[in-house]
């Protein structure tokens, strides 16, 4: 039975030089196979029967020239045991299948005396390759009959694997190793006659160590996670190219994403993704290390997700699945899913302390400990930040601690992750654009009214999870996770100035629209899944099925009030408890028909149940006698949704992948909006992607995709209530172009361009209560930028090999973001945003000194714009016409970082 599509191929090509430097003879040339591998990693059971690789399960040594055999013909070393390299865990989601070239020095007994990377593909791949080859055993090279030391070049090719778990879990699933050794394909460098030489240099030149070909083929039972062409993995080298104010800013490098902390330090980013104004996460499923971040039915917005706890130094990569094509994608995966993988690469492990100081009296302190003896996923980090903030009322403090540990036990890989985060900040709020233009208020200022000067926010969060994955013989695998989360959120923000009237106290009005929102959530959840081993009725077909479940319980306490100066409450809008239960089931069938075609078809269903204790329900003081009932409205509601998710991939060429995908996703409702017994209305989304991925090893990867999504019920920000309100169905048509390039070892770059036409289909009609709805059928969705562009470029390398015994290393990087003008309600357009960030650092021994510059051109920009009615001059005749409001983005700022690493 042949192995096909699902294989990871580890191509090992070897060249040999003996210590004497004499001419080499390889068995590859003579057609004599090498010894088959005698040992494989016990963690990676062989899925293919031995017969699969029979013809090529031996080394393919090169043939020597006959006239050079005497007087002492050199026979190159033979592989006798080949341990397969482990595909780096964090890359399992990935789209890369690079080649790492390793120079291996063998002693006269065939043991690996030294191994050095000659051509790397990133630290994790390099480490994986080195770890593997150090375990290899060889029949030594021989001059005549005498064993001799030699040096060979081994090119290890990592073929793109597939996922079966979030990366951090998937690391557990090592590839199944079909230990075969093949003759390299003709015409490749591996065919060149090898030479044997004395390993006088750690990394000999190619002339000294030509390659012979050895191919070891590995198959993984891991799953495909990049279903459509809109799946992207942004590795740490790209994420670290440009400076980041905080870990959450890494979102900027995801194609189609623009994220800005528009409201303040303690409030989550506002995120745009592929034409979705996802607000604080309502349309984007966000996960960190496998932990769900979105909070259902949050008072500040459905799916509220604040990833402010991320510490840049421990974010290994960001994976974005744009579209809804994977049955594992759950609530809020409307525009897609973004995963942050945590870990510390081997080269960066150890203890690190870094202090940063810069603009606006901002101070950051990082402490990071990643034991060198532990796996990449194991680390502990804490970061504290204090800032006075740019402009007025933007100061704040925050602290974030992340601890993750991973261990193996037999077939199990276990991982624990804990996150603690707290932040408090003053908020500047929003300003009317006409007030700025008239000079009544400065761009970076805030209004002088007490209810504007009282704006602030506090947030605290704990997330903890325990993850386990296992792999059984035969390739089946499974896993589980349990997690718990606690969140507290309090916001005081005034969007509209002085237009509110009390509903509780008739006749009381105009005391300032300082909205207080409170939300506390306690959540517990679990997940589990099982993936079968492959079923192979025919040689050209392999089928696997994965089934899984997930669920969560959420206990929410939330309230919304209006506050006046001295914190007097003068109106009460929300006082409620919510208990939500959510369960999901999914199944996913994977068919691989030859190595050129893959089809995935699955389904996901979800059930939601809510109980709401609305303590202000039935409040109607003007219409009912007060003694006829007791205020309050308790209710329950539930609903279910089921949707398909299918995808197909055709690989006509090794470097070309054509992909099509269709799926239906959903977003849960805001619980408080449900009536008693209401069939809980899910917001459903349909999406389709059609695209292609061109990939040339790790050097260049280009993805282009066109997409369509249709949403049953969109929402938009309602400033009078400071929360999201429904605005009806919407549709998006767009395209994404993304390119990653690593043309040189020291150079990396990525660029993405996303275009979308986002159209509102069925906004709510005018009613007596809302005679002038701001949205009309056919209009472009407000706040959605038609074009989003992002570019990251970074260079790094050794500047001077030896400065007082240590090398001097340098790094430079820039990032550029463009957000085109966004349509606003009532026809306005927000100004375009374009931002340059740049940074660089020098490292010498354990010390590094870096400079980061944000908003290099000091562009004055609005991090977010709104259009609504406000009145910020209580002495003047009130304005009732919707007006532009904006939240200022950060101006030019500079930070200097001094780090110490051991």
């Amino acid at each position, binding site marked *: 039975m042949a192995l096909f599509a699902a294989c990871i191929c580890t191509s090992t090509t070897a060249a040999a030089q003996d210590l004497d430097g004499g001419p080499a003879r390889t068995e590859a040339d003579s057609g004599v196979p090498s010894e088959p591998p005698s040992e494989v990693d016990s963690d990676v059971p062989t899925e293919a029967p031995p017969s699969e690789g029979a013809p090529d399960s031996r080394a393919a040594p090169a043939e020597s020239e006959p006239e050079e055999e005497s007087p002492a013909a050199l026979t190159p070393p033979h592989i006798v045991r080949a341990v397969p390299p482990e595909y780096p865990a964090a890359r399992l989601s990935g789209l890369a299948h690079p080649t790492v070239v390793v120079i291996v020095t063998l002693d006269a007994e065939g043991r690996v005396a030294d191994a050095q990377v000659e051509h790397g593909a990133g630290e994790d791949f390099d480490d994986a390759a080195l770890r593997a080859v150090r375990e290899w055993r060889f029949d030594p090279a021989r001059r005549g009959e005498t064993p001799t030391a030699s040096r060979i070049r081994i090119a290890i090719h990592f073929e793109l694997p597939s996922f079966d778990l979030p990366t951090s879990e998937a690391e557990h699933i090592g590839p199944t190793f079909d230990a075969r050794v093949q003759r390299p394909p003709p015409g490749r460098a591996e065919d060149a006659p090898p030479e044997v030489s004395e390993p006088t240099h750690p990394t000999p030149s190619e002339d000294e160590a030509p390659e012979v070909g050895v191919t070891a083929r590995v198959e993984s039972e891991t799953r495909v996670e990049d279903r459509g062409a809109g799946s992207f993995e942004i590795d740490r080298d790209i994420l670290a190219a440009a400076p980041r104010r905080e870990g959450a800013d890494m979102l900027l490098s995801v194609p189609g994403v623009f994220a800005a902390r528009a409201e303040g330090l303690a409030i989550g980013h506002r995120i745009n993704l592929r034409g979705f104004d996802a607000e604080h996460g309502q349309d984007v499923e966000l996960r960190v290390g496998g932990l769900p971040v979105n909070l259902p039915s949050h008072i500040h917005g459905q799916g509220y997700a604040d990833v402010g706890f991320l510490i840049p130094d421990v974010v290994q990569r960001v994976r974005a699945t744009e579209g809804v094509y994977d049955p594992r994608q759950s609530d809020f995966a409307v525009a897609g899913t973004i995963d942050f993988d945590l870990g510390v690469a081997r080269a960066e492990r150890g203890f690190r302390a870094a202090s940063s100081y810069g603009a606006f009296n901002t101070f950051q302190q990082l402490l990071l400990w990643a034991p060198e003896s532990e796996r990449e996923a194991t680390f502990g980090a804490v970061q504290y930040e204090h800032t006075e903030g740019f402009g007025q009322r933007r100061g704040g403090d925050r602290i974030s601690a992340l601890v993750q540990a991973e261990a193996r036990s037999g077939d199990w890989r276990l991982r624990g992750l804990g996150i603690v985060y707290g932040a408090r900040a003053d908020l500047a709020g929003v300003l009317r654009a006409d007030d700025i233009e008239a000079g009544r208020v400065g761009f970076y200022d805030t209004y002088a009214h007490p209810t504007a000067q009282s704006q602030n926010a506090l947030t605290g969060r704990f997330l903890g999870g325990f993850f386990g994955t296992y792999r059984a013989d035969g390739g089946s695998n499974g896993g589980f996770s349990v997690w718990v989360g606690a969140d507290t959120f309090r916001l005081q923000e005034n969007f509209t100035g*002085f*237009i509110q*009237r009390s509903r509780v106290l*008739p*006749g009381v*009005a*105009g*005391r300032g629209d300082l909205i207080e929102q409170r939300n506390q959530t306690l959540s517990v959840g679990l997940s589990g899944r099982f993936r079968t081993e492959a079923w192979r009725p025919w040689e050209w077909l392999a089928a696997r099925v994965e089934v899984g479940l997930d669920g969560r319980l959420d206990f929410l306490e939330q309230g919304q009030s209006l506050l006046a100066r001295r914190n007097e409450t003068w109106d009460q809008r929300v006082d409620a408890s919510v208990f939500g239960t959510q369960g999901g089931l999914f199944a996913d069938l994977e068919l691989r028909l030859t190595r050129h075609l893959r089809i995935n078809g699955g389904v996901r269903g979800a059930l939601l149940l809510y109980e709401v204790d609305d303590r202000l329900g039935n409040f109607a003081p003007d219409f009912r006698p007060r003694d006829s009932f007791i205020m309050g409205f308790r209710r329950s509601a539930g609903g279910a949704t089921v949707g398909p998710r299918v995808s197909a991939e055709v690989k006509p060429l090794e470097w070309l992948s054509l992909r099509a995908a269709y799926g239906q996703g959903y977003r849960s409702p805001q619980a408080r909006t449900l009536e008693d017994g209401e069939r809980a209305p899910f917001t459903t989304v349909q999406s389709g992607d059609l695209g292609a991925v061109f990939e040339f090893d790790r050097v260049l990867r280009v993805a282009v995709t066109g997409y369509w999504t249709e949403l049953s019920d969109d929402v938009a920000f309602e400033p009078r209530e400071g929360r999201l309100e429904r605005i009806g169905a919407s549709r998006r048509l767009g395209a994404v172009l993304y390119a990653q390039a690593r043309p040189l070892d020291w150079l990396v770059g990525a660029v993405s361009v996303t275009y979308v*036409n986002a*159209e509102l289909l069925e906004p709510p009609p*005018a009613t*007596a*209560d809302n*005679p*002038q709805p*701001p949205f*009309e059928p*056919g*209009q*472009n969705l407000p706040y959605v930028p*038609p*074009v989003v562009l992002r570019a990251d470029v970074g260079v790094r390398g050794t500047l001077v090999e030896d400065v007082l015994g240590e090398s001097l290393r340098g790094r430079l990087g820039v990032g*550029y973001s*463009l957000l*085109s*003008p966004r*349509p*606003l*309600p*009532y*026809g*306005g*357009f927000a100004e*375009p945003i*374009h931002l340059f960030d740049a940074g660089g650092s020098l490292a010498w021994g354990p010390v590094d000194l870096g400079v980061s510059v944000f908003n290099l*051109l000091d*562009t004055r920009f609005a991090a977010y714009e709104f259009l*609504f*009615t406000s*009145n910020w001059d*209580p*002495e*003047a*005749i*009130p*304005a*009732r*016409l*919707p007006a532009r409001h904006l939240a200022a983005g950060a101006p030019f700022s500079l930070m200097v970082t001094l780090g110490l690493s051991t």
Partner: protein
Amino acid sequence: MRAKPIALALCLGLSASGCIDTLTESTSIELAVQGTRVDGAFEGRDGVPISLERAHIVFGPVYLCAGFTAGNLCDESLAEWRGAVVVDALSAEPTAVASMDALTGTARSYMYDFGIASRLTTPEMPLVTPAAESLGPASAVVSGRAEVEGQSIPFTVSVRVEQTGAVEQGVPVVRSGESDGIEQEILPDGQTRLRVRFDPRPWLATANFRALVEDAACEAGRDVVCAGAVEQTCAPDGALVASRECDANGQVCVRERGCVDRLELGAESQLGRALRSGVEAGARPEFVFEVSP
């Protein structure tokens, strides 16, 4: 910066290609006011001929709304002018006032004040516009003559019209309902013009000028009575003390006041209440929309 014009060009290109459609647009409305030329006298209550010499009213701020009824349902307006102007309601000549900020859409109602606006934050201290200040401060000042019982009574009435309802603080005084609403499409590019035409004649429709005159004789408890155009001064016991012909001095005899050159009345007078009622709840000005070609 180079990127900015590129981005703008890109987005303008998208807009021009029809890829971006925002439908509702910002626009403006040229606002003008005019009065009504009133030649000679017109009939007031009980057929009293009234001739006007002055009819000034303060108009503004004014809002156009999308709902069929204004008021609380006009928290967001479709057009607004937050100024105020003194309108000569006897001049038929339109006077350009201002350019209203507006959005395209259908206006179905309106609301406005008479130069004195209630503030949500300090209802006890309404905002008096300069226009209203120039009238006294007042919202309307009307002068004229009423021909009653053979006397031609010159009068001047001045009133403040302002929001008094506690639950309506911050809301303009006049809010149109479904019966007196409008239906006008507000077009882009300032194509829509609005002319508000006032007719002062109905303002005094409920004014009881006959109550100003009498043909009485002295009686106990009254100091002064009018016997037609003759002022009689009375003793406490009701005896006639003195009398004089008012018209001999070009004056009129007004009940309780006797001979006066001119009747000056405020908001609390019967005429003042009538005038306030007339401008606030009586016949509304005509909102005339015109569309530029």
